[in-house]
């Protein structure tokens, strides 16, 4: 109602002035900027220093800081307990929004609930906790698992003269990315008994472990058709083992679509990369944060899930814009 009155008033003023060349003010501008003045957003990733978390931080900073929002990074550097401490101290510091990247589905669940009860909006990114908060932005891992499962069936089906043997290299078993995705892959494989999962191991997101596991698996199953790895940074190890074996194994991996992934496709490190676009996720987060700060619902009262669109990128369908780079990369 106020908006309409303002609009009419502006129109009248413009007419009365008689001069059409005079500018008029956007009536929502003031309220928009007021909503963000002096607000605080805190960001707790599992660790800084790798493409995903650096990319999100970069995107959030770029979107929020010009609005006058303070953006604060708490880096627990792969320590779940340091992360829990960071969230605990944030609850008493009361920022307006906490952006959390969960190391696993359990650890932060109670803390996130507490944070919402303390009046803080909680946004979860990419790896979710078992507790749902105001916003989740990230890949639909169960769906992603299904799609990867279907790709594996398509590539390795004995109908096409392939062996039907596949292997999985997971990250950390308890991470949402691993657990949910496994569910999706298993769902598909249940419908396809002709595809045989000969190995399903966890490599802790570490390239060296991934390489050792893969070397043994290929040696035991020389007719292995494909490997699905759960992170491109880790799967440089998987790829090294495939290359050393001299076998033709299709490697489908996944990641945030950093430049390193496209380079890997270009030089044959990976056969296919499932990309959840990190700058896009940062933008999704920034948008929902802006919405929360403007609408001011009670924290925890609405639960929004925004699944990121997935791209299945190969060397053939890769475009110049398929990947993004960090500064200095």
């Amino acid at each position: 109602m106020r908006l309409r009155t303002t609009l009419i008033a502006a129109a009248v003023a413009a007419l009365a002035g008689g001069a059409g060349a005079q500018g008029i003010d956007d009536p929502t501008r003031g309220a928009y900027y007021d909503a963000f003045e002096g607000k605080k957003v805190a960001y707790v990733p599992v660790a800084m220093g790798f493409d995903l978390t650096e990319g999100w931080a970069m995107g959030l900073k770029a979107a929020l800081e010009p609005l006058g929002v303070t953006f604060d990074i708490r880096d627990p550097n792969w320590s779940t307990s340091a992360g829990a401490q960071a969230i605990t101290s944030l609850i008493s510091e009361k920022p307006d929004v906490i952006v959390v990247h969960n190391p696993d589905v359990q650890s932060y669940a109670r803390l996130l609930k507490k944070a919402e009860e303390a009046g803080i909006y909680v946004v979860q990114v990419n790896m979710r906790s078992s507790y749902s908060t105001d916003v989740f932005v990230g890949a639909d891992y169960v769906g992603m698992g299904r799609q990867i499962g279907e790709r594996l069936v398509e590539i390795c089906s004995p109908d096409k003269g392939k062996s039907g043997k596949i292997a999985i290299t997971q990250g950390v078993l308890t991470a949402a990315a691993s657990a949910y995705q496994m569910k999706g892959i298993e769902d598909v494989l249940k419908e396809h008994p002709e595809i045989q999962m000969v190995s399903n191991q966890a490599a802790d997101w570490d390239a060296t472990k991934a390489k050792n596991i893969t070397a043994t698996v290929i040696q035991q199953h020389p007719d292995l058709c494909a490997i699905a790895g759960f992170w491109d940074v880790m799967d440089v190890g998987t790829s090294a083992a495939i290359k050393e074996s001299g076998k033709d194994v299709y490697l489908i991996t996944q990641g945030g679509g950093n430049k390193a992934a496209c380079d890997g496709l270009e030089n044959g490190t990976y056969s296919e990369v499932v990309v959840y676009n990190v700058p896009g996720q940062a933008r999704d987060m920034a948008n929902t944060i802006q919405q929360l700060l403007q609408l001011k619902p009670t924290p925890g009262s609405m639960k929004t899930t925004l699944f990121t669109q997935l791209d299945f990128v190969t060397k053939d369908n890769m475009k110049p814009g398929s990947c993004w780079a960090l500064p200095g990369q």
Partner: protein
Amino acid sequence: MRVFGRLSQEQIVFGLAVLLCLGFALALPGFLTAQNILNLVRSVSILGILGVAMGLVVIGRGIDLSLVALMAISVAWTLQLATNGMPMGLALALGLAFSLAVGLLNGFLVAYVEIPAIFATLAMGIAVYGFGRYVMFSLDVVYLPQDAEAFRWLGQGRLLGVPTPICMFALVSFLAFLFLRYTHQGRYLRTVGDNLAAARISGVPARPVILMQYMIAATIGFVGGCVTAASVASMNTRVANSTMIYDVILVVVLGGIGLSGGKGGIRNVIVGTLLIGVLLNGMTIMDIQYTVQNVIKGVILLTAIVIDTMLNPRDEQTAQQGDI
């Protein structure tokens, strides 16, 4: 019991490894093939190289908890410099120089400031990791530049059909063996480890020997790091926070090098490494779930230690001060 009573821990562990090998060979098709044995050793060769470094320090009655962190940071820095356009040779030289400087500092803290090695190197490891991540590079995984073919060979190549990491493990072990057996410094190292006071009274330059032992460890660590980086075309600096350093100590202690110093040799490291290798390889072939693998690994290691304690009980004569 008398016959078994003479078995050393090294022999027990070797026996366990052989038993496991036999069991796997009978139960798992494809275990006892040349290709798999090469795979098996290759997968633990980096652990073995680091084990040799740690073994030398432990024989000198020290311990180097900064080994893995230093390896990760110095090699990651080398890769970062090379990516930024520096010639690979120069980058390697700088990385090695950094390693040596930190090794020297470790030795200085232990030998001259007389801080217990366990605390000095623990703090050093944390400091080096933090310094590296803050000053030297910003991402925690640093990739190998595309054109570094010669470097890549170090981890992915073959020498007479044997993967180069195994050759590097063999070379490092052989050099360390020669050092311990045939050089004055090597014998000094063992003497200092066995009894520091007695060594010093008899004229051994004890403090310089301690400096040297940490510098050697840093050098071998750098070599191990280069092999790691070359074999997966990247250096993951997160290993500095992983349990890898405990795995390295485990290999050393399991093989029978007592933490009280002065005892054991390179053979012990090799035996310890092989047992871990056989275990990991067999469990991967059986596709045992990761968490269950940890349980099995823990139980087998405990078994080895229990058998050793039963067959070689400690008493006042065999136990030394400082034995952990």
